């Protein structure tokens, strides 16, 4: 709780101590990249300090708010709101006939809020689904905004409207000190709101019906949340632009969603990722001359997302592929041990497993070629489960390999018996099921089944069930 509120305060302080004649990032001309890097990390330029502070702050705010919209499955509401603000921007401009930030801010927030309310209204009163409702609001508000802009331009105020282009693509370099102070204010309030109203927001986010039944004013919270969302989006617009602001809402939150399972962790991680991508964005656009900041922020966020998508500890593609491979290898190892065990059992080899099993026969039993068999056995040998008998084309189970094989066979046969006795399966239908589950039964489960079956000796096919390990 403490650390969470300290960060924005620090950044706020950073903003305040910027000297008054702050230059804008865009005006810095420096060609040596290393010099640029040094200047970036020493925060030599006041303009950079401004832009960076602003970017970091709304990176954090977008992460926080984005977490809620991602878990509520309304990720694209940010997209809709950010487009819907355009008529508000135009109206704010009309009202003041200048690029007065306050008028534009108020107009834009109002339009954004209205957009999200219309989305809800359409969903509630018609059979149109959320996606279409979002699309309608997004495009129609935007079109109205475009028309109004053009009409403003037609009246001859075109020269003063140039700053509006940054609303579309965004550039941290155009932020002036007043903007950053506004951003800071909004972000601090947002963060405090999320901390204070964490419980109700969480409840509404996951289970609206439950929230309503506990007497929470769900509607009011929705409106409040959307107000803040619209507000943050409007504030972020200047730096990243209409199209990409939704990315800053969704991507850090989605990354966090892949990484952690609990909501308050997710908020944390999303805020940090948001700040980090903002940092990356400002850094890249600072290095190259005249590059837009917003797209680089988005790319930073997207590459973090890609990393999480591939390597997240539990849900990553690569991680899951690795564990899948390990599991499959384990299954194939255990099957090999089982085959050897059964050949020993059939009397093809000596009872204690010390005498070797012919690899020719084993290959026939497993229905694999000799080369494949030898490869598999080599792998088992490195695990210490089998050993080759030199010069005789035979293989023996080691002590641990024998135990493992017996455990698998025991699982298999106990499960078959369980299915026939307790679940009324026909005895000729139980093998396939047991073939799968034998690898995954835990010690406790097996013991429980055994107890329930009253310590049986033979399986439904009349084969002996090996005893419990005496280890």
């Amino acid at each position, binding site marked *: 709780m403490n650390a969470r509120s300290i960060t924005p305060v620090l950044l706020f302080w950073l903003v305040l101590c910027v000297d008054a004649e702050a230059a804008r990032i865009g005006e810095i001309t420096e060609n040596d990249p290393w010099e640029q890097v040094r200047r970036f990390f020493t925060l030599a330029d006041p303009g950079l300090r401004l832009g960076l502070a602003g970017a970091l702050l709304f990176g954090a705010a977008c992460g926080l708010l984005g977490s809620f919209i*991602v878990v509520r*499955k*309304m*990720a*694209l509401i*940010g*997209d809709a709101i950010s*487009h819907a603000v355009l008529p508000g921007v135009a109206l704010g401009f009309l009202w003041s006939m200048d690029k007065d930030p306050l008028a534009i801010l108020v107009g834009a927030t109002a339009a954004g809020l209205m957009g999200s309310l219309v989305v809800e209204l*359409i969903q*509630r*009163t*018609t*059979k*149109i*689904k959320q*996606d*279409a*409702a*979002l*699309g*309608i609001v*997004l*495009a*129609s508000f*935007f*079109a*109205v905004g*475009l*028309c109004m802009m*053009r*009409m403003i331009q*037609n009246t001859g105020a075109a020269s003063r409207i140039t700053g509006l282009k940054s609303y*579309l*693509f965004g550039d941290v370099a155009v932020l002036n000190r007043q903007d950053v102070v506004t951003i800071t204010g909004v972000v601090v309030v947002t963060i405090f709101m999320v901390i204070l109203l964490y419980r109700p927001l969480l409840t509404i986010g996951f289970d609206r019906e439950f929230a309503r039944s506990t007497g929470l004013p769900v509607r009011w919270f929705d409106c409040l949340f959307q107000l803040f969302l619209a507000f943050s989006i409007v504030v972020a617009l200047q730096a990243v632009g209409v*199209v*990409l602001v*939704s*990315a800053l*809402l*969704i*991507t850090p*939150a*989605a990354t966090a*969603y*892949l990484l952690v399972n609990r909501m308050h962790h997710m908020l944390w991680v999303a805020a940090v990722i948001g700040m980090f991508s903002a940092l990356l964005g400002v850094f890249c656009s600072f290095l*190259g001359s*005249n*590059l*837009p900041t*917003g*797209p*680089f922020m*988005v*790319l930073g966020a*997207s590459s973090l*997302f890609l990393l999480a*998508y591939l390597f997240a500890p539990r*849900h990553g*593609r690569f991680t899951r592929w690795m564990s899948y491979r390990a599991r499959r290898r384990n299954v194939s190892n255990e099957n090999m041990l089982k085959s050897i065990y059964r050949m020993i059992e059939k009397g093809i080899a000596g009872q204690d497993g010390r005498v070797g099993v012919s690899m020719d026969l084993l290959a026939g039993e497993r229905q694999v070629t000799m080369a494949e068999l030898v490869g598999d056995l080599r792998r088992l040998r490195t695990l210490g489960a089998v050993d080759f008998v030199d010069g005789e084309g035979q293989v023996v189970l080691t002590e641990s390999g024998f135990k493992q094989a017996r455990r698998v066979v025991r699982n298999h046969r106990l499960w078959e018996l369980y299915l026939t006795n307790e679940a009324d399966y026909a005895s000729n239908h139980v093998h396939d099921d047991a073939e799968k589950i034998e690898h995954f039964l835990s010690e406790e489960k097996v013991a429980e089944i055994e107890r329930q079956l009253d310590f049986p000796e033979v399986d439904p096919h009349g084969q002996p069930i090996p005893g419990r390990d005496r280890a």
Partner: protein
Amino acid sequence: MALFVTVACALIGNYLVLRRISLVGDAISHSVLPGIAIAFIMTGSRTGTPMFIGALVAGVAATVFIEILHSRSRLKQDAAIGITFSTLFAIGVILISIHGAHTDLDLDCVLFGKMDFLPVKEPVFLGLPGVAVTMGALAFCVGLLIILFYKELLVSSFDPALAASMGIHPRLVHYLLMSVLSVVVVGAFTSVGAILVIAMLILPAATSCLLSERLWVMMLLSLLHAFLSSLAGVHLAVALQVPTAPACVVAGTGLFVIAWIASPRQGLISLWLRNPDPEGAMEA
């Protein structure tokens, strides 16, 4: 010209709304940007074919990414769409601002379209400019495809399982639909711009879905909507001296609002007549 664009979009838009993937249209229209930028950088020309191919590839790639992201991770489709299109769009903007800064590849044009800036120099066919002919042919092809594969599209939109049991491959249909969508979006793109394409896709379908419950009636109504909105839009554009594309969208929105309020069975008025207590109607 406006008519051809709206008709092609309206036809395919019905299926987007039905399949609840309306925003995929939006995603594609944004995602084609890097394709266009790369085609432009590689060939250095601003003419149709390379750009069209680049855009098409990028559009189809975007649908594939969305599909992969949402079927292979715990993310929902909305988040997958948001991430995909914003990433691709960001790449596009960066590419253009690095390479296209000195050229005439203008972001404004790419984003907002220039329906009224129809190139007069282009070859003229039957009194219509080349772009319009392309778009008209596109609209015709889309119409033809939909008539030919009406049953397949219908079944796989409403019940993928049934479609699979009938020997229709739902995934194949999905990707085919997405490729056609990409073609239409790319075609419409130059005239209406990336952001307004979605309006052309969704508005007719959403309006007609308020008025009818049968798919073929819906499609006819959406054609009517496309026709009316482009007609009204052009007049509006002339009257207010605004660009044609946004004006068409504004007109289309007007039609939607009328349907929303006055639709015989699902409109706000009939809702209110049946249940005068507005709170109750909304909760229902």
